[in-house]
């Protein structure tokens, strides 16, 4: 069933244009006095909401054992193929016989989709709220296992950006220009 929509017939008032123009001007002037949304980045930092997908981390159990068992489900799920894992027999004696000897994520290839987090059967890999981790070279943006565990230490207790000392220098990367 087709619906016939009557097109709007402009009245004389409309054809004058001026009321509409004035309305438009009112809109912009209202915005002129409105609260601004700009966050002045290096001085102020946006605090991402829960569920924000930023830099990855590798979780640990309270007894320091890495949660990851190197099953490579994250690598299999990753659409940009940026996770590379070398597994090995785990040094802990707790029934989980595997652990990652190396765990590298190429942060430049990553699209921060969070599929790895969803695929992980152990809740080991997680995307944190950290978003400003730019660097000076491509090589420095391949984060390794120690780096990922370092991110865990940074973010396990508190949102990274609500901490007092949250300068990028505290990130587990090299940040000086080389």
């Amino acid at each position: 069933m087709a619906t016939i929509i009557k097109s709007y017939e402009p009245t004389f008032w409309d054809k004058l244009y001026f009321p509409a123009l004035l309305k438009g001007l009112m809109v912009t002037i209202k915005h002129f006095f409105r609260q601004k949304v700009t966050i002045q980045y290096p001085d102020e930092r946006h605090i991402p909401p829960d569920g924000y997908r930023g830099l990855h981390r590798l979780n640990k159990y309270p007894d320091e054992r890495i949660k990851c068992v190197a099953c490579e489900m994250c690598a299999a799920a990753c659409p940009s193929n940026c996770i590379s894992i070398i597994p090995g027999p785990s040094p802990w004696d707790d029934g989980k016989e595997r652990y990652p000897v190396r765990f590298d994520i190429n942060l430049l290839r990553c699209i921060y989709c969070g599929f790895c987090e969803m695929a992980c059967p152990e809740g080991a890999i997680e995307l944190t709220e950290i978003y400003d981790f730019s660097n000076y070279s491509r090589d420095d943006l391949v984060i390794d296992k120690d780096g990922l565990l370092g991110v865990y230490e940074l973010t396990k207790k508190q949102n990274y950006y609500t901490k007092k000392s949250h300068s990028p220098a505290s990130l587990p990367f090299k940040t000086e220009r080389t």
Partner: protein
Amino acid sequence: MPFIKIDEKEFEVAKGITVLQAALANGIEIPHYCFHPVLEVVGSCRMCLVQVEGMPKLQASCNTSIGEVALDKKLDGKYDMVVNTQTDAVKQERKNILEFLLLNHPLDCPVCDQAGECYLQDYTFKYGNAHSRFKEEKRVRPSESLGSNIVINQDRCILCSRCVRFTREISGTNELFVQNRGYHSKVSILKDKPLENLMAGNVADICPVGALLNTDYIHKNRFWNLDTIPSVCQDCSAGCNVDVFSQRDEIFRLTPRENHDVNGYFMCDIGRYGFHRFEEIERVNQPLVRNGKSFDVIDWAEAIQKTADLIEQSNGKTAGIVSPFHTNESNFLLGLMINGMLGMLPAIQAEEITYPSGFRISADRSPNQRGMNNICGGLAEDLSSEIKTQAIRGLYILDDGVDRELDDAWKEILAKMDFLIVQSYAMTDLAKLAHIVLPGLAPYEREGTITNDQDRIQWLRPSLSIKAESKPDWEILMLVNNALNKKAENFTGLDDVIIKMGEQFPNYSGITLFKIATQGIALNGKKM
């Protein structure tokens, strides 16, 4: 011939085969665990249940053979048997069986090395329930080592008994058995008789789940990360067909590939773990020329020219030494190049082992002795005396990198030579004596054909990349040959060499890599 119907598909089958075999042969999938084509049927897993018309209960298809029935008893007037694999009862039964199998299964796929090639995973995904109703604690049993290369994870075992039947019927060594009964059953060994035979590795392959694992591969990688190349084992003349699994230029494991004319479904442990030999060798991957006690690196053009000059100056007094480890093509090209005489590097011999199932480890532990003999007409029988009688001044050795003790006769020969050209991938004892070393390819890098001791020509395929400046052996030989003889043929690929080989040795005519494919061609009574 019985005429049967499975799921609306009608076909004739040979009398006496089972429903499962008939279905598998005709592309109908029936899930199964305990059935293995070469093992005795036990019908213990109940995974293969199907509904056979006229039978009151579901039947294990692996254990139901098909026969012919009298004309008046035929179903619908024409079928000897009508089987349904998709009825609700069958589907429900599969669910039930899987639920039972998973009761005490740890479901630790994330750490299980079978994940990705596990039939329990696949069938549960396809036919099973998404959830378990088993709320109680699962039984946990420790993993045990069954032998030096095999561990068993008791929790994951589904007690299909394939492994037990393997040691009984195929290897005939009887190490494995099912201990205890019922809930306490487990696959086990006697204390003083561990699983130590040269076929032990196969039990990990035939185990449908991740219960039996090769310690060599455990926690090394993931199945789906690996590239699979069908190739041929290079540890004896039987020429077992294998799949080579590699990732990022590293081989992770070898598994047997089905070929009923050669190895059936299995391979021996010598070949299975043999690839490790090549992992830590001192590689030569640049052309070298002797400079006093050491070597200088030179470029290929120069190396080829120097080699050709040496051979030319010797005036026909250069002997070629072929190797039973090299491909037919390389050996053939060396024969083509040398117009003096040909000798061979000593072959490796060991005891021949035959298993009750007919599986055989050849006494000849060099993979291509037969091929080498086939395509190098007139190999010198007694090398040292012939070298003396023909006054040979130089040797071109196609070295194979095998660690072998050279006997005194060889040492004497080598000491007398004016020059020694060694084509090799490793710094072997021979290469250390050489005047020129030409870097060829290592096994798993090289490609070509080899002929097993039953005269079956098979395709050896590369899994690893060529390192640094090394060149394929056939190409080096062709380049030297071209430098020696401006009229010599230029081969563009291996197939060209094989055609040339066929021209000289009628046995090999009409062969191409494409025709050899994955199953090989028998040279005697060749069927093309």
